[in-house]
C-alpha cells in the first residue's frame, strides 16, 4: 500500500519500485505502470502514465528523474509529482484539467543501477554502471550519451571521466530505452522535462551549441514565468536560459535531443540548492523543494495544454 509511504524521505529503489506498483494498483483509472526496458544490470525500467483513461491516445508530457545517480532530490520530486497528481485530481482544477486532457509519462528513476549503487556502495556515484572495454573504469554519463552533437563539446572520450560520452550514441541501454520510447510516441509527446540537481536553474536548448533555438523567445518566456511561479512560494531564485550560454556548453544532453526530435517544449530543471548541501540536500528540504517545483512544472504543463 502507498498509505504509509514517506515522500519526505529519500527512498531506496526497492521501495520506489514497490510504491510504483501500488500506485498503479490503487489508482487504476488514473495510473498505468509499464516497463520500457531493462537496465545494464537487469532491473526493470518502470514508467508511470498519469491521465484519465479516455480510450484514445492523448497529447502527453514526458518527465524523467534521476539521470545522474547521486542527485537524490530528483527521484524524490518525481514521486512527489505522482502523489500530487493522484491526490489533487478532482479537487485542483489545473491538475484535473491536465489529466483529463493530457497524459503525463513519469520515469521515476532513469539511471536505476547508478541509484542503487549510490545507496549501497558509493553515495557520490554519478554515471551508469555499464562496463567499458579496455578499462576497469565503469559507467557512462547518460546525459552525454544522447544524439545531440554527441561528444563534441563539454564531454569526455575517457571512460574514467565523470562526463564520459560512451562508446557511441545511445550506447547505454537505459538511454536507448528512453529514446526508443520517446521516438515511438513522438506524435503525442508535446513536452519533455528532465529533473536534475543542483544549481537552481531552469534551462532549455541548446547546450551543445551557443546558437539559439528556433523557439528561443517563447521558451525563455515560459522558463522565466515558471521560475517566477516557483519563486512565489518560498522565494527561491532560479536562473533561466539556454544551457550553453547560461552555464556551459555540453553535448549529448537529453533536452537538446528531445528538442531536435521536434518536442518544442523541452526543459531541464536543476533543483535546490546552490551548493551549501549540493547533492546532499537534507530530507527536511524535500517538501519545500518539491512544493515550489510543482508550481513551475504545473505552469509549464498548463502552458503546453493551452498551446497544444
Amino acid at each position, binding site marked *: 500500500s502507498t498509505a504509509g509511504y*514517506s515522500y*519526505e*524521505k*529519500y527512498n531506496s529503489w526497492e521501495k520506489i519500485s514497490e510504491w510504483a506498483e501500488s500506485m498503479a494498483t490503487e489508482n487504476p483509472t488514473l495510473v498505468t505502470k509499464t516497463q520500457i526496458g531493462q537496465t545494464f544490470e537487469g532491473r526493470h525500467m518502470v514508467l508511470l502514465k498519469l491521465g484519465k483513461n479516455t480510450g484514445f491516445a492523448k497529447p502527453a508530457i514526458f518527465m524523467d528523474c534521476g539521470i545522474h545517480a547521486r542527485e*537524490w532530490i530528483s527521484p524524490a520530486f518525481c514521486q512527489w509529482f505522482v502523489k500530487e497528481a493522484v491526490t489533487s485530481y478532482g479537487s485542483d482544477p489545473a491538475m484535473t484539467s491536465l489529466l483529463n486532457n493530457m497524459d503525463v509519462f513519469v520515469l521515476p528513476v532513469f539511471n536505476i543501477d547508478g541509484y542503487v549503487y*549510490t*545507496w*549501497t*556502495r*558509493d*553515495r*557520490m556515484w554519478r554515471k551508469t554502471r555499464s562496463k567499458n572495454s579496455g578499462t576497469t573504469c565503469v559507467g557512462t*554519463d547518460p546525459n552525454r550519451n544522447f544524439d545531440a552533437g554527441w561528444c563534441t563539446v*563539454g564531454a*569526455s572520450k575517457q571512460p574514467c*571521466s*565523470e*562526463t564520459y560520452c560512451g562508446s557511441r550514441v545511445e550506447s547505454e541501454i537505459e538511454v536507448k530505452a528512453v529514446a526508443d520510447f520517446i521516438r515511438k510516441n513522438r506524435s503525442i509527446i508535446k513536452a519533455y522535462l528532465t529533473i536534475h540537481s*543542483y*544549481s537552481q536553474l531552469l534551462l532549455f536548448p541548446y547546450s551543445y551549441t551557443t546558437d539559439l533555438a528556433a523557439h528561443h523567445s517563447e521558451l525563455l518566456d515560459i522558463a522565466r514565468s515558471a521560475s517566477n511561479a516557483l519563486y512565489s512560494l518560498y522565494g527561491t531564485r532560479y536562473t533561466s536560459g539556454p544551457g550553453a550560454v547560461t*552555464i*556551459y*556548453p*555540453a553535448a549529448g544532453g537529453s533536452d537538446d535531443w528531445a528538442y531536435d526530435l521536434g518536442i518544442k517544449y523541452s526543459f531541464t530543471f536543476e533543483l535546490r540548492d546552490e*551548493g*551549501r*548541501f*549540493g*547533492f*546532499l*540536500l*537534507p*530530507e*527536511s528540504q*524535500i517538501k519545500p523543494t518539491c512544493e515550489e517545483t510543482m508550481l513551475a512544472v504545473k505552469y509549464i504543463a498548463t502552458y503546453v495544454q493551452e498551446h497544444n
Partner: protein
Amino acid sequence: GPSTSRFDGVKVFRLKPDNEYHVNEIKNLAEKIKLNFWNPEGADQVTSHLNVDVQVNDEDVLLVKDLLQRSGMEYEVLIEDLQKAIERQFDNKHR
C-alpha cells in the same frame, strides 16, 4: 541503508577562479590528483568567474590548500567532512 563507502575527512571546496591562470591551475590539478567535480561537471567546463565546487580526498587536502594559497585564488570550504554531511542528509524528524 546508506552507502558502505566512507568519506571521512573528504572536503568539498568552492574555488573562485577569476582569470585564465586560475583556470589552468584547476585543470592542471585535476590531472595530478583525483578531483570529483560537483559543479561544473568536469574540468573541461571550468572557466573564469564560474564557481567550481569540487570534492577533494582527505590525503590531497593539504596539497590543494597549498596550491590555492600560492595561486592567490579565492576559495571557501563548503563541506568540511563529507561523511558527516552524508549522515546529516537523513534529517527527517520522523525517521
